C-alpha cells in the first residue's frame, strides 16, 4: 500500500497507532510526513509538554493562571493575556465554560497573543467558576481547561473544529476529564482529530 519507504516513515511510525489505523482504513496510498504535519492541527498547536495533570487549583483565577503557564513560558502569549481573561470574566462571567467540566480559556488575539498555540490542564479536583456578573451566582465546576492562543479569528478554526468535536460530545468530555496522565489526553485529542476528517 505504501509505495515508498524513506527516512520520513520513521517519524510517521512514531505517531499514535490510532492515526495509522485511520490512514490505513482510509486507504491512503502514500503518506508524506510533511503533509501529515500540515494536516494535524492538534499536533501543530499542542505540545505534549504543554499538557499537565494537577491535583487542584486554589480558585478560578488560580486555575486560569495555571492553565496559561505553558503558553507564557513558551513565549506564545504575554503576561497581559491572563489579565485580559480575568477582566473579561469579571465583566461578562465565565462564558468560555462551554459545558460541565470544560473551559476554553482565551481572550482576543490583541490581548497578548504572540503565536498560536494550545495548552491543556486537567484538575483532578474541579474548580468552581462563579459567574460574578450574574446575581444568581451560577456555579460552574471545571476539570479540563484548554487554553487557546489564537492570532486571528480564522487561523484557529481548524483546531476549534477538532476541539468542538469533543466539546459537543459528553462522552468525550468525560473521557478527557477522567484521563490519568498527559499522554492519554494527547492521544484522545489526536484521536478526535482523526475521527473528524
Amino acid at each position, binding site marked *: 500500500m505504501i509505495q515508498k519507504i524513506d527516512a520520513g516513515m520513521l517519524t510517521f511510525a512514531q505517531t499514535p497507532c490510532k492515526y495509522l489505523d485511520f490512514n490505513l482504513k482510509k486507504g491512503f496510498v502514500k503518506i508524506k510526513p510533511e503533509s501529515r504535519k500540515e494536516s494535524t492541527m492538534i499536533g501543530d498547536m499542542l505540545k505534549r509538554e504543554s499538557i499537565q495533570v494537577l491535583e487542584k487549583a486554589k480558585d478560578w483565577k488560580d486555575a486560569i493562571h495555571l492553565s496559561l503557564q505553558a503558553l507564557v513560558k513558551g513565549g506564545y502569549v504575554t503576561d497581559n493575556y491572563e489579565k485580559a481573561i480575568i477582566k473579561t470574566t469579571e*465583566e461578562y462571567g465565565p462564558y468560555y465554560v*462551554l459545558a460541565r467540566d470544560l473551559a*476554553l480559556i*482565551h481572550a*482576543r*488575539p490583541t490581548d497578548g497573543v504572540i503565536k498560536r498555540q494550545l495548552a491543556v490542564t486537567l484538575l483532578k479536583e474541579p474548580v468552581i467558576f462563579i459567574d460574578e*456578573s*450574574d446575581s444568581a451566582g451560577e456555579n460552574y465546576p471545571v476539570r479540563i481547561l484548554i487554553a487557546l492562543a489564537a492570532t486571528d479569528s480564522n487561523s484557529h*478554526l481548524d483546531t476549534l473544529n477538532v476541539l468542538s468535536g469533543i466539546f459537543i460530545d459528553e462522552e468525550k468530555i468525560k473521557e478527557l476529564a477522567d484521563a490519568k496522565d498527559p499522554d492519554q489526553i494527547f492521544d484522545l485529542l489526536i484521536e478526535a482529530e482523526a475521527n473528524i476528517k
Partner: protein
Amino acid sequence: MIKILTVCGNGLGSSFACQMATEAVLKELGVEAKLDHIDLSSVSSQSPDLVISGKNFQKQLDRVNLKCPVIYLIGLVDKNEIREKITPALKEIGAL
C-alpha cells in the same frame, strides 16, 4: 434560508464552539440554516433570524434591541439545552 448567529465576548472561541453544537442539533432536526459566529459588539450591525448566546450576555444583548428571537444558554455546547430552546424559537420564526 434562515440566518443564525452565535454570539460571545470575542466572537472567536466560545461562539464558534456554540455554532458547531448548534449545527449538530439543526442537522438532527432537519433544519437548514446559515450559521456564523460573531462578537458582542458586532451583532447590532447584523440582521439574523435567530441569535444564540450565553446567559451571561443577556444584559448586554438586551441593550442591543435585536429584532429577532434570542436564545440564552447556560452551556454553550450543551446539545440538549440547545435542542430544548431552539425548537420553540424555530417554530416562532416559521423554520420548523
